[in-house]
């Protein structure tokens, strides 16, 4: 599998926010996107996830010689958790597991296993709105596990997390990479993942891709 971006540029208002961003990820590789606030990290991730149109360039996902739309291969964890406060955690996770299930794709973890993996087993019967901000974030991460996607796109994944949860999340990422997955993360904190590519965004100054 290969996930690549070629000469991407995106517009915010009148000007190009970034241009000529290129990188390529193979199985088990990670890309960490860093840069100051407003430098276009989130925009880049949303372009990669197919949620914003790019001005120029292409995003491609190739699986065994066959090209598939990139957004379908991606999991996107943005600033918002994409979970309903009124539903229980279990209902939320079951919904995403079923909604995102694909025929012929690797199955995701089951709900209890995923809750265990984020260290919150035993509270899946509670409404999502009852959880604390950190717990909500961790349950949103469990969503990455219940439906399998080869590429994880993470936007500030560890905001609102304590040190222990940081380590837990680094473990999840490593397991994902070890299983041949890929990830692109925008973050200020080191995710504790070894051997990653990095990309520094400068915003309107057109930073060079270091990948």
């Amino acid at each position, binding site marked *: 599998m290969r996930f690549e971006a070629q000469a991407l540029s995106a517009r915010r208002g009148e000007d190009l926010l970034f241009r000529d961003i290129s990188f390529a990820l193979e199985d088990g590789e990670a890309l960490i996107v860093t840069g100051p606030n407003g430098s276009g990290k989130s925009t880049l991730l*949303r372009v990669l*996830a*197919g*949620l*914003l149109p790019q001005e120029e360039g292409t995003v491609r996902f190739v699986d065994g010689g066959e090209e598939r*739309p990139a*957004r*379908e291969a*991606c999991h*996107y964890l*943005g*600033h*918002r*958790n*994409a*979970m*309903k*406060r*009124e*539903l229980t955690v279990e*209902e939320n996770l*079951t*919904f*995403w597991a*079923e*909604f*995102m299930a*694909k025929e012929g794709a690797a199955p995701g973890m089951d709900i209890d296993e995923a809750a265990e993996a984020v260290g919150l087993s035993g509270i899946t019967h509670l409404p999502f709105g009852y959880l604390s901000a950190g717990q909500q974030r961790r349950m949103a991460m469990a969503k990455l596990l219940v439906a399998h996607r080869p590429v994880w796109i993470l936007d500030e994944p560890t905001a609102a997390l304590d040190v222990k949860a940081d380590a837990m999340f680094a473990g999840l990422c490593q397991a994902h990479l070890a299983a041949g997955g890929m990830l692109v993360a925008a973050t200020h904190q080191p995710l504790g993942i070894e051997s990653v590519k990095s990309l520094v965004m400068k915003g309107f100054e057109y930073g060079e891709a270091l990948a």
Partner: protein
Amino acid sequence: MTALLLRDLRLSIRSGGGALIGVLFFMAVVAVIPFGVGPDLNLLSRIGPPILWIGALLASLLGLDRLFQADREDGSLDLMLMQETPLVFTVFVKCLAHWLSHSLPLVIASPLLALFMNMDALSVGATALTLLVGTPAITFIGAAGAAVAVSLPRGGLLVSILVLPLTIPVLIFGAGAAYAATQDPSPFLPPFLYLIALTLIFAVIGPLAAALALRASSD
């Protein structure tokens, strides 16, 4: 897709879902008419079907603005946009869930409210039947409006105004068919068939337009 249907139905009956708001509004509109019109029973039974139709139309426009906005606010919409499942289909299922939770209760409540309007059995049956067939069209049209206004905070009234002109044909044929059932010279079937046709057309056009608008509105 069953998962999406069940989730939206569940959400509509949980706190803040607002499935019953429409019915309450419908009830309020219809219940005050007899007081305004006065105790002329013949007049009431004659204007009964149109009043029920107008009430149902306004009530079903009420909750439409939240159709996609709630999902957009918590980020769920992003994930829905990324799936392999065609977005049109996702939108269609959301419309279906919305109709089941918000419009079907109106159809079920309409025979009860018909009592306020002194309507006879045939007229009550015809009105309920035309509402059953016609209200899906309103939901599908409304979905397009809701998708266009998805990124606007307080887009509620705007959605209603946007889709109101498009719902007029539905109202004309719906109320027309319900009225025709009790008035001898005018035939029931032609307007009723037009109503079915409108629902079928909008079941295709509505989700298509909504899907296009949602793709364009992401930021």
